[in-house]
């Protein structure tokens, strides 16, 4: 858990909201006071290879959090690796630092 972290988004699963090349700021602080909710964009730890993934929470139930990419067709997410436990959520995306520049 990190109070503040800077992430570069790699890959297209959050297109068009967060295109690849976007820098975002994440924080674990919001989840000290509130619980993650549907619609939150979060950085999670992949249960497959422990890599950091950026996804949006789409459903919550008693067994965990179902996360999905905004670009459903090009996303490997809870549809493949299942529900995530609370501790897999590293932080919430709180701020977009820079979007990639287009020519």
């Amino acid at each position: 858990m990190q109070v503040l972290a800077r992430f570069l988004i790699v890959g297209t699963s959050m297109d068009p909201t967060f295109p690849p090349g976007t820098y975002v700021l994440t924080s674990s602080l919001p989840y000290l006071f509130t619980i993650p909710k549907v619609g939150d964009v979060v950085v999670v730890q992949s249960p497959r290879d422990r890599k950091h993934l950026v996804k949006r929470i789409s459903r919550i139930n008693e067994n965990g959090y179902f996360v999905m990419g905004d670009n459903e067709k090009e996303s490997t997410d809870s549809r493949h690796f299942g529900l995530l436990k609370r501790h897999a959520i590293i932080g919430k995306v709180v701020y977009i630092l820079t979007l990639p520049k287009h020519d």
Partner: protein
Amino acid sequence: MSNIIDFSEGIYYAEFEIPMIAKTIQLLTNMLPVKIAYAHCDIPCGIYDVHHMQMAAHTVIRMTQMIEETEMTDQKHAMHQIARLTKIKEEHAELLKQELRVLWADYFKDEHVKEYPNLHDLVFKTMKLASKARQDIDMDIAKDLLSHTQEIAEIFYKTKGVKSIRVKSVYPTGLDIVLHTS
């Protein structure tokens, strides 16, 4: 407020009304190390197929056939031939497992399992059969492996919304292959 884009509650685009604030945030956060967050997709193309899997099952059958038919008169030659055939049998059983693993892990989704409740069991049995086909020289197992693979191929095509048909393959096994017709 025109420069603030609210993507989701609590996330704001960097260009604030007061650029100073944005700049200050940028400067401060520049000190933070950059980590990578993968907006991840294993294969961002949606290209999955059951062709290789079936071809591999036919190859396992053919190799089993050829091992069984190997003449043992010239022992050195026979050993060499069986080593070669076994190698290909091993590789193709493993290829089948790899293809199936990708389908199961990346393509098939909850809704498919709901629609075809035997899918998990079918995949599990096919995996086991592929391992057995590696371990033994057993035509029944090899044929059973093909028939399970065909069943999965038919489910795959159904999930794609296309019709499928079993036709006689052009391979020396003389057995069927599942193709889609529409």
